[in-house]
């Protein structure tokens, strides 16, 4: 994994990152890969969505609703309740309509059963996204073998905010630049994610963080 991280860094230095399904690098993702996902999915099932407003899943759910995604909260502990007006369902199988992406708010140890269940749904989702801190390479490989794109250890709220530069209000390095005048964001509006990227998701620091994580785990 460390060697993979270094490979990612070398690719970044060269200024080009190519992604193909056979050798997906999950230490770093190109902005185009993330942008492609966020621009194409419409319906997102969030597994582990919480009605508690201090939980990161609540933040992300609310933000993605505000940015126009059709969000479905999945959490067997809260069936009968709603999250921002959307009824909780117990499992992916209970959704009863097609969805494009699963956003998994569970720790790494609980990823595989969700992926297994996802693979029984029809049609299959296009994307399985695992939240910040969550990573299961075996589960990712299984999903990718079925033609599903995978993102691990990232937050869609942060990535959407970054690629639209909305997150810049918080002093965050969006790693994008643009000389274009952007529209003024309003409630429920999808923002343009097509800013110029500064060399993928990888910085030296990101590579080092991935390496530290690998060595300390």
């Amino acid at each position: 994994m460390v060697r993979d991280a270094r490979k990612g860094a070398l690719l970044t230095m060269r200024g080009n990152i190519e992604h193909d399904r056979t050798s997906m690098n999950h230490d770093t993702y190109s902005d185009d890969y993330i942008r492609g996902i966020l621009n194409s999915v419409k319906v997102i099932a969030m597994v582990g969505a919480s009605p508690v407003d201090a939980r990161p899943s609540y933040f992300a759910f609310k933000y993605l609703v505000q940015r126009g995604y059709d969000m479905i909260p999945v959490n067997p502990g809260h069936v009968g309740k709603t999250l921002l007006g959307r009824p909780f369902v117990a499992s992916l199988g209970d959704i009863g309509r097609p969805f494009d992406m699963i956003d998994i708010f569970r720790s790494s140890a609980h990823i595989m059963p969700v992926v297994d269940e996802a693979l029984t749904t029809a049609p299959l989702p296009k994307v399985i996204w695992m939240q910040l801190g969550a990573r299961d390479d075996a589960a990712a490989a299984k999903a990718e073998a079925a033609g599903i794109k995978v993102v691990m250890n990232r937050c869609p709220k942060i990535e959407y905010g970054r690629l639209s530069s909305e997150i810049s209000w918080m002093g965050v390095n969006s790693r994008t630049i643009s000389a274009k005048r952007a529209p003024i964001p309003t409630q429920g509006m999808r923002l343009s994610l097509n800013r110029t990227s500064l060399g993928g998701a990888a910085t030296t620091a990101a590579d080092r963080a991935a390496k530290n994580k690998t060595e300390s785990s």
Partner: protein
Amino acid sequence: MTDRLPGFSTLAVHAGAQPDPTTGARATPIYQTTSFVFNDADHAASLFGLQAFGNIYTRIGNPTNAVLEERVAALEGGTAALVVASGHAAQVVVLQQLLKPGDEFIAARKLYGGSINQFTHAFKSFGWNVVWADTDDIGSFERAVTPHTKAIFTESIANPGGTVTDIEAIAAVARKAGVPLIVDNTLATPYLIRPIDHGADIVVHSLTKFLGGHGNSIGGVIVDAGTFDWSRDNKYPMLSEPRPEYHGIKIHETFGNFAFAIACRVLGLRDLGPALSPFNAFMILTGIETLPLRMQKHCDNAKAVAEYLAGHPAVASVNYAGLEGDKYHSVARKYCPKGAGAVFTFSLKGGFDAGVKLVSNLKLFSHLANVGDTRSLVIHPASTTHSQLDDAAKVKAGAGPDIVRLSIGIEDKEDLIADLEQALA
């Protein structure tokens, strides 16, 4: 599909800035306002609860300041940044997130005199205990580590002694100790050294110096490298534990690899209050656009002046890492090949009195307590910036009584040398 990586000069001009969505203004507007109107009650609640990106109140964040934050973060290769009222404020805010009363941090002894004072006296009253180590003896950092150590602090190029720090060696000590390495990169700027590339976890600056560069605005910045795992143990509860003031949010869990910058903003800046004026942010931003041009000229001029002084019969020694044969020359070649900065010291054979005479004879160099101005500056540290240290500490800090400090500007180097020539005559 490909992503292209723009160069440093492009980032210095563009990172963080975009045409204003409302007016189309191309230069970053100065949002000189205390507060920002909410869309509705839910929007207000979302912003206060840290659930939405946006502006509330300029003590916590401001759109002009945010451009400066992203720009410095991009130039340093960090995940996020926070601007504050001064470099000193940056140090207070950083350590407030890391230390509780009774905790310790290790600091390199060769530091800006103001930092030595702040660490020794002001922080002592908070119960934050500084333990000094010697940049020339990496073992002294290792030996200083105790179970109470929460951080290691060093300058990349030390003020005023011209010391260039082996950041990677100190980073290795920090890593082994499981604490973040904080690097003050003020005198180098990211144009010369990017400490994060060498293992720093947090970078701080006085923006007042070369980044702003024109001697017109005080400011500071904190850059989060995004590299430190704040939740590995219970050492950093500000980041890893639920925060009662935000309904039990855990900052690291929620904000991932820019959690430290967020903690500095929502726990540090919000409650301690050292906000940067948007006007200062605008001035500093404008300065940063020309950082690569200025910094190279500063360094080239400094090398020429240092070489001139090294050959002058009245000069006893010159401490500039850009000179061949200097103690720190090989470290400088590794860390800052483009130049060893523009602040250095020298001593005169005539000692203290000759130093005082030189300062009063100079006509082009301004006698004042700042560095990193377009103008060339001169000061006698022992009687000014480092005057509150005792004699032994002055020598250890590289500010002995016979030392004169120069900050070389971007004038024509021939004029600077001519001014020194007449003043030394």
